[in-house]
């Protein structure tokens, strides 16, 4: 890392060249809001980003390095710049005389900067995300046309045949366009949009995006420095788990057990005397199987998500309470399974077999708390067959408006639409 006060030099150079912040940010592959934070010494500049910014400003990275003190002192100066009441000239004295307090101030300042960057990135995304805006506009335009045209067809008794044919054709075009637009929008939202490393994603999302880019083949290899520090910690923990899974379920033995038992994590774990969760992860991360995985802690929070096509996983808020995952977290050591269909109720609704298992642990012994964790394997299944449990991703986007487990209205229903309110049965 280089010193935070590099930002002032970057800003001075940019202004001297008469360049706009947005243009330099684009050339360096960072967001304008991120560059703004850097230039105001409110964000430390990773070395690789500094190199790209320097190139965009047609200068050497060394020209922007700060000359004074160590990184901690530079950071303290950055704090002083952000707080005019702080004595900038006495930063060195403060760091030397009260190093513990200086460290605490720095830690709080860094946390504040990270939060500001995340807010700025989210704000940028919501305001200026061209893909989101274009997708929504496409869907709304198609909906407007379908609604207006269908009302004309339904309510105009004396509609001339040529107009009728024309409107039917328009309806056909717009319904196809609507389906395509809605699909693109949901795909985009499912993917989390354009997650970048500048704070628009949570550490968990950073890890998932990184693992997904490698098709979850992350047992070996370096963890990229572009991930935030918390994300790197989480990635290392996941990598260690996966390495342990491979040790307890070696490739040949795992393949043989899979061949004998199919994608049944408990049967495979039992056959090879391995931890159940190791078998869940081995199955979920085997690229040729095409399975998904969600993991939750005792609060029901999803702490790891490997998506599978057709089964949406929520980015925000709680997941569908009907998932077997949540039965498993409440009933440790029981195999919970359900065949479900997702999306709107339909004979062709995509189906999945969900296999969930929960475990409790006491890492601090009898004197400590009980911790719980549950995993759910998501296995694509054939459409059709006997009635299946209807589930969704999360109540906010679920099309099953009359669901008895609903806890809040769906955005797919009107705010006062029938059966869209939360269940009050309990």
């Amino acid at each position, binding site marked *: 890392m280089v010193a935070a006060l590099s930002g002032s030099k970057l800003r001075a150079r940019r202004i001297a060249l008469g360049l706009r912040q947005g243009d330099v940010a684009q050339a360096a592959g960072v967001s304008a809001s991120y560059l703004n934070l850097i230039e105001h010494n409110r964000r430390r500049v990773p070395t690789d980003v500094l190199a790209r910014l320097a190139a965009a400003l047609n200068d050497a990275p060394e020209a922007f390095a700060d000359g004074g003190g160590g990184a901690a002192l530079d950071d303290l100066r950055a704090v002083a710049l952000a707080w005019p009441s702080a004595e900038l000239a006495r930063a060195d004295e403060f760091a030397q005389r009260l190093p513990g307090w200086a460290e605490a101030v720095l830690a709080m300042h860094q946390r504040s900067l990270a939060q500001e960057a995340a807010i700025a990135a989210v704000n940028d995304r919501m305001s200026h995300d061209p893909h989101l805006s274009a997708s929504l506009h496409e869907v709304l*335009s198609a909906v407007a046309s379908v609604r207006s045209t269908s009302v004309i067809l339904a309510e105009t008794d004396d509609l001339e045949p040529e107009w009728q044919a024309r409107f039917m054709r328009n309806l056909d075009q717009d319904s196809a366009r609507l389906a395509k637009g809605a699909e693109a929008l949901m795909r985009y939202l499912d993917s989390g949009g354009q997650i970048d490393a500048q704070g628009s994603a949570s550490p968990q999302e950073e890890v998932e995006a990184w693992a997904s880019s490698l098709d979850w083949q992350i047992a070996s290899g370096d963890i990229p420095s572009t991930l935030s520090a918390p994300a790197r910690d989480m990635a290392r923990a996941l990598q260690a788990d996966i390495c342990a899974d491979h040790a307890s379920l070696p490739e040949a033995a795992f393949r043989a057990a899979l061949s004998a038992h199919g994608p049944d994590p408990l049967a495979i774990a039992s056959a090879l005397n391995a931890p159940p969760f190791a078998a869940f992860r081995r199955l979920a991360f085997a690229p040729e199987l095409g399975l998904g995985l969600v993991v939750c802690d005792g609060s029901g929070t999803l702490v790891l998500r490997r998506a599978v096509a057709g089964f949406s996983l929520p980015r925000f808020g709680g997941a569908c309470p009907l998932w077997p995952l949540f039965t498993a977290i409440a009933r440790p050591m029981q195999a919970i399974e359900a065949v479900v269909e997702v999306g709107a109720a339909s004979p062709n609704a995509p189906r999945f077999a969900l296999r969930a298992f929960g475990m409790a642990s006491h890492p601090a012994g009898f004197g400590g708390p009980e911790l719980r964790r549950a995993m759910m394997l998501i296995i694509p299944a054939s459409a059709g067959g006997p009635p299946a449990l209807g589930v969704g991703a999360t109540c906010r986007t679920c099309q099953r408006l009359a669901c008895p487990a609903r806890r809040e209205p769906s955005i797919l229903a009107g705010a006062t639409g029938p059966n869209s309110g939360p269940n009050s049965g309990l």
Partner: protein
Amino acid sequence: MAGHILLIEDEPNIAEAIRFLLGRDGWQVTLLTTGQGASDEIARLCPKLVILDLMLPVRSGLQILTDIRADPATQDLPVLMLTAKGQERDREAALAAGVSNFMTKPFDNSEMRAAVRTLMGGA
């Protein structure tokens, strides 16, 4: 019922539905599918109402509205703007620029006809 309406809308199927609806009510509707040349068309047709989509190619609805209000010959011309939900900031800008009324997509046909009747002076 008589009266000329200039409809500036780039979505052909929405435009076709609006033309049909307003045509059945007796209005004469001329369609322009981009923002380009809007001022010339207004000067040529002298419409009694402009129905204007906010998001248009070449020139936005907001720019066209500003042009209309800046021209003494059209500064009082009623303008009904079509917007989508989520464009609150643009709507505020259009209000400041002097729009007469809004219609939010997806709109209700009867509400569209009623809004047009009102802006055409209850004709």
